[in-house]
């Protein structure tokens, strides 16, 4: 199974971006993903304050960094997600 990564990007004023600007960013990201030519899934992102936290799925952290390089996105850290937990984890 391919690992999932959480990517931290610092983008001053990210939380203030308009819908139009966010659409533009998403289009760029989609285009880069399509051009990579390797298995790659962008799952979703949280836009918050001066940060964007993205969740991507691909084989290697280097590919995540290449996606950022080609799209011109900042990329402060790439960390593999070990586990996803929630309130229901308490029941298991």
């Amino acid at each position, binding site marked *: 199974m391919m690992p999932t990564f959480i990517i931290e990007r610092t983008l001053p004023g990210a939380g203030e971006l308009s819908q139009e600007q966010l659409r533009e960013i998403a289009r760029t990201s989609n285009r880069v993903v399509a*051009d990579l*030519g*390797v298995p790659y899934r962008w799952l979703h992102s949280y836009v918050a304050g001066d940060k964007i936290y993205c969740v991507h799925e691909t084989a*290697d952290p280097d590919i995540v960094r*290449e996606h950022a*390089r*080609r799209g011109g996105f900042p990329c402060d850290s790439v960390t593999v997600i070990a586990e996803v937990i929630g309130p229901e984890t308490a029941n298991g």
Partner: protein
Amino acid sequence: MPLLEREGLLDELGTRLRAAVGGRGSLVLLGAEAGAGKTAVVTEFGHRHGQRAHVLFGGCDPLTTPRPLSPLVDIAVDPRSHLSATFAASAEPYELFTAIQRRMADSDVPLVLVIEDVHWADEGTLDFLRFIGRRIAGLPSLVVATYRDDEVGPRHPARPVIGELTARPSVRLLSVPPLSLEAVTELAGGDAARAARVHRATDGNAFYVTEVLASGEEVPRTVREAVLARAARLGDSARRVVEVVATAPRSLELTVALEVAQAEPSAADEAVAAGVLLAERGHLRFRHELARGAIEAVTPLGRQFAWHRAMVDLLQRSQPDDLARLAHHAARAHAWDLFVRFAPLAARQAAERGAHREAAQFLRLALEREQHLDRPTAAALWAELAYELHVLDLHAEALTASERAVGLRRELGDPEELALALGQLGHARFRAGLDDQVAGPIGECLKLLRDLPDSLAKARAYDQAAMVSMLQRHYRPAVAAAEAALEMARRLGDARLEGRTMIMLGTTEIVMGDARRAVGLLREAHGIGERVGAPDVSRLATWMLGSGAGEARLYDEAEEALAAMVASASDTDDDSALAYGVAWRARVAFERGAYDEAVRLADRVPPRPGHGIIGPITALGAKGRTMVRRGEAGAEEVLRQALAVSPRAAMQYLWSPYCGLAELAWLEGREAEIPELLAPVMPQVTDADSPWARGEVSLWSWQAGAMAEPLPGSAEPFAALVRGDWRRSARLWGEIGCPYERAFALAHGDEDAMREALVEFRRLGAAPAAARLAARMRQLGLSHLPRGPRRVTRRNPAQLTPRQVEVLELMVAGLTNAEIAQRLDITEKTAEHHVSAVLAKLGAPNRARAVATAVGLGLVPGGEDLPPASS
């Protein structure tokens, strides 16, 4: 494309080549931003002077981890260099460096070495630049090194090398300026409006200007688009060739490119005709790294993986020894299973060439992909990484690596390997200054070894344990482990290990046991190293003999070995051995009462962040103690500096500076403070078996009234005095050759002895001890105290610094400023500055008068047989 506005640079290089032909070589550092045209300048220079010089080119690569000494390998491949045999035969980088130096000195046709892209240089190549930069002035050669100055920031590894080199008169820093608007206008065929737009968009960067003008479009947004515009016209097959060439740093063999791209030669011709690629000497390359980067950035990652993977497959068949290149392509193909196979081999290859930084980097990268390694391999690589990091003096990281190796070995359960890893962990903790945490792993290591059958691995683990115990000054465990290792190494017939274990045994004996026997052992180990071709064993033997005999106060043996250690360290640019060797010479000079010499030597070993600690601690300790004995201001501060270099360093480095603080307190009548001053080092001293440390600590504690008997195992000259036998103590110190200690013992004797001590203290310039003794003699009612020689004849009356005395000696010998500069390894300007300071202090209007005054005052020896000095 004509080369514009580069005549000034080419003239300067031409002038330097002519000077080189005349025997005055130089090193030119050519820095500029990417695309400014550095390569064009050096290429043109090569064309112009190809008739009168052999211009040899070598370059550094932007590999994941640079290939060790790659520019020198390029140069050696050129038949005109006559170096290929040397490169095939030698593994040691410094042998290669000296071979190149010899070749440069002996060549009938002057050699010009052009080393390109130093911003990508490996550690070995930087060492070469340092090496040749220090020697180029006397060679009939020119070295030109190019680099991107905007990429060599303050933390870049090339920065200190460039900084150090530019201080030298034989090194020149040049840069390639941007093209002017006029030049761009000429290139744009006189179209002034277009030229203005292009000039503005490119800032005159030669590569951007060329690309933008050639793309035929109105100023494209970026150079990337300009490059892509050229590439866009290519057919499928030519496009594949371009993408394949983009996978290779610098250039790619034409045959390899065509085979990987599965293309006909016509495809390469098409790419060359379109101006995307250049073909030369059977290789294809981009006109610039920026262009390569542009193509790489638009090639889908999946295709890149495929090209890199195809490169790996081809190289494995055609060039299986080029491991750095294989590792690079495997990493770029994300073929981690292959990468982790190549990287350790590439690391070993790099380490053999002395490129330890690269070796460590390959190992780090492999271990980052630990999930692709089986666990025994991972454990072995962590151990190898720890070793490389020791060499690099990166102790904190080495400690982590050693811990990982031990952790994995525990899981794996092979006791022999676990013992070896534990020994290494003990050593790592010692080197990191965690002296109190060494016993655990070493004890466990020895316990494991007891139950194991003999083997080479077991012998190595014993050797490791012996070294750690020796360094900690634990006599019995060190001897037991070293003897076990030595016996096993002999029985198993491993001469190299035999030499190493003899060094451990010899060093243990020299600092804690039978020092005379030890000298023989260390000399024998040195001989074994020479006989079996293991220069590292011989060098280690010399190192241990120098510092060990110094600690044992066998000064003749120490000075001979230290001189050899310093000489070989200078030849090989081994800065840590150089620092420690010079520091120990300072310590020996201090103990023998040669105080000026001690300070002069100690000042050559200042503490430097990121470098080894033991040289500066030793040097500052010797300097501080000298200042204490001469009663100079600031002595305590220097001793505190010595202790602050590494407060948790081992006992063997710290006891002497601590005793210096005790001695200062005693001289100033603050005896009561001595126990507190020695308290930090006391537990370590009583835990260790060092007779000299025990002896001196006993002496000062006794002087403070805090100890009645010497610590057991104290060195006899100290112990005798503490027991009250001042005669024996003085005689022993006289035999050893420590005049101050001898006078100190005599000062505890009868009236005649005290009188002799007073004369001796005064002769040495030990004013505080002399004053203290004179006061005591007066108290005792002794009259007619001997007078010391007048201060003016004892110390140099002109108040010259040691450096100025050195300069003065060279002036007396008739050397010019330039010659003085060369001799003292300083710039001519600095030499000039010293000379004027000397003239001022001597009140001399010119050199001739200064020399006459100096000889007249007896500031410098001789004078009769000197050539007449000119002013």
